């Protein structure tokens, strides 16, 4: 266990360094004058002129060599200081906490909703592999997965918000604002998680130990509870980790459509505005987030998997 944790920690340090170096190099290689871009980000492009850019250059010390800037970023990072946004002047951590928080809430809601929709239907289909529900599910999940998320978002807004008037079309701040963006993300995720659950269930349901259970006279519900769910759990948890990576990609698109103040939105604007501390901080936290997630998925899979001596054995 200790070895696994040390391994993950070393991985986290490597990711931090790599993300830092890469984002720094990428930001440096972008064309154009950084002071002008930052001034445009701060004051709007109507108000960008050489004077404003010069003021920004002086204020932020943009004339110093790039390597010195990187060195000071690394030194600050070692003291867990992420710096301040050059656009808003607020501490990067405060900005990220707000924006990442909004993204995580949305991603969490989407994941929960997808778990409510996808696996139960998948399990039902898997229990009767080849049945009507199974065939309908195949068509439906293929269709849902192949629709781009921005299109799905627009279709849901037109249907649920404009035609039926049930939900707000976009926005942020109230509980009901979660539902449409979360549902947009969840449908895509559920389309796949239903298939994963269906395949795992079909495999388990066709296995000799399942047949033995039936032969013992256990009911379908008892069978599922005792022998089914734990076995498909490993596949589901591993897939959940993957889903999270897909979510990050989807969240960026969905935030733009629904006017959601998330990390995708923040990252895009930070790149446009040449807000290097924000880009570095955001990329770093996303990178570390993936390391943490992988670690958690590994641990959860070990814990659940009966073959690895997990819970309940």
């Amino acid at each position, binding site marked *: 266990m200790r070895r696994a944790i040390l391994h993950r920690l070393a991985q986290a340090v490597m990711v931090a360094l790599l993300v830092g170096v890469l984002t720094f190099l990428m930001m440096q290689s972008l*064309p*154009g*004058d950084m002071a*002008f*871009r930052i*001034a*445009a980000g*701060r*004051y*709007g*492009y*109507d*108000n*960008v*002129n*050489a*004077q*404003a*850019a010069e003021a*920004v250059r002086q204020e932020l010390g943009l004339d110093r060599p790039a390597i010195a800037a990187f060195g000071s970023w690394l030194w600050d990072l070692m003291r867990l200081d992420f710096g301040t946004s050059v*656009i*808003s*002047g*607020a501490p990067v951590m405060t900005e990220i906490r*707000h924006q990442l928080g909004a993204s995580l809430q949305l991603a969490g809601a989407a994941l929960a*909703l997808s778990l*409510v*929709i996808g*696996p*139960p239907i998948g*399990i*039902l289909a898997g229990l009767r592999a080849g049945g009507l529900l199974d065939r309908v599910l195949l068509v439906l999940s293929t269709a849902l997965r192949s629709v781009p998320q921005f299109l799905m978002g*627009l279709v849901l*807004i*037109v249907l649920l*918000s*404009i035609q039926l*008037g*049930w*939900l*707000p*079309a*976009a*926005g*942020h*701040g109230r509980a*009901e604002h979660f*539902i449409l963006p979360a*549902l947009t993300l969840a449908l895509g995720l559920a389309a796949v998680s239903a298939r994963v659950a269906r395949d795992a269930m079909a495999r388990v349901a066709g296995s000799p130990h399942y047949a033995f259970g039936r032969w013992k006279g256990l009911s379908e*519900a008892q069978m599922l509870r005792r022998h089914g769910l734990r076995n498909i759990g490993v596949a589901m948890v591993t897939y959940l980790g993957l889903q999270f990576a897909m979510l990050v990609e989807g969240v960026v698109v969905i935030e*733009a*459509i*629904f*006017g*959601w*103040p998330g990390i995708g*939105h*923040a990252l895009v*604007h930070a790149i*446009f505005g040449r807000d290097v501390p924000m880009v570095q901080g955001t990329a770093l936290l996303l990178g570390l987030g993936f390391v943490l997630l992988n670690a958690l998925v590994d641990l959860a899979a070990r814990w659940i998997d009966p073959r690895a001596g997990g819970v309940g054995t």
Partner: protein
Amino acid sequence: MRPAFLSAAALAALSLPLTAGTNDGVLDIVAPFEIKGADPVTSGNIFIKMDLAETLVNVDPDGRLTPGLALSWQASDDGLEWRFDLRPDVVFHDGSAFDADAAAHALNVARAKPGLLETAPIAAISADGGDLVVTLTEPFAPLPAFLSEYRSLILAPAAYGPGGEVTEVIGTGPYRVTRLDAPLRLEAQGFADHWDGPPFIDRASYQSVGRAETRALLAESGDADYVFNLDPASVARLSGLDRLEVQSVSVPRSLLIKLNGDHPALSDARARQALSMAIDREGLAQAILRYPAGADQILPPSLADWHSETVAPLTHDPEAARALLADLGWQPGPDGILTRDGDRFSLVLTTYPDRPELPLSAAVLQQMFADIGVEVVIDSTNSSEVAVRHGDGSLDMALFARNFALVPDPIGTFLTDYAPTGDWGAMNWDSPEFTALIRDLARGEGGQPERDRAIEILQTELPVIPVAWYQQTAAISGAITGAVVDPFERTLGLRSIRWAE
């Protein structure tokens, strides 16, 4: 089965009718502008539109200056001192009193930051008894207009940190901020102690939505009462809905092509005139921008003082353009592109996608220029590249949108952009007559004939080529009355909006 039950319950929960599209007592405003923080220098355009803070001087829809936090103002005889008589009995949202000291403090902080105020010839801003006094280094007639701009918003002394950074929006407006969730949302409540009484609607919200499609959907679904900056396609769709009113006004923002006067192919005014004649403004405006017409001079009729009735309008005449270029020694090469002494008439057009119509318009212009034998390569990049390339001299030409109404008197913009050269205006172009006219006008000397002459010089010399005048469009819900679309993009008229009966 429990899973089946769970999913059924979730679906049932989703089908419960919620509050969307109903009048929830909050006046919901949607626009693309993002809240970058509490400082008027970065986000004042939103604070002024949301009636959270006020300026000393206001502007009516015709561009005339009207009393704001100052009741009246006058310059000394030598024009070097402006005295503002401030409105009595005004309080800030934190309960502190608005007075000349507070106004001087706010303006001095703003003046130290990049902005128009920084460019004005101000020596000092101070309180003198109950009056605010601005001392100048030279006469400057547009000073009151400069003080109507959003970066001159007056915030309470408690709004500023020790270094002049703004920590909180504490203004005097009829609404006060109750929640500021930068970058996308703020909520406000009517301010009971406002000097003109509280607004009719007690609660308002502002939501920044970057995508035009989403803004249109918010208007269509009824989630927002007042939606700004509609894209051309949405205007057509939303105009057909009974419960919405789509308003459109011509704003003092022009789509311009800026040219480098030092470029060998562009230094002669006739070459610039030829490029101007190659442009079918009508076609471009209707096909790409969905506006009724293009721009036949630099400023639209809504800026009555500066829109000249006497200049000859810019026209589309490719034949005449080809003839002019032939006079200048340009001859078509084997591929149809003009050449002169072995040089091709080839230019790089810099533009930016922040305004989606710009790269599209650039592509259309490229075709129009190709039609007279001029090759144009489009470089769609970051907006700041226009100013950067102006600075280092590497710019050939740029397509951009310029706001002439940052202050209602465009003299400020003319001073920085054209007298004689500036990041967003003329490049390597100098007309001593024009510069003298503009500087005189800025000092308060001269009137309509001088303005007309100045416009005529721009129209003939064409340091920039006008292409179109922008229109501001907004969708206003039938649930409210009293909204106005301000050509100066300064106010939404929030304080006078009521719920419809």
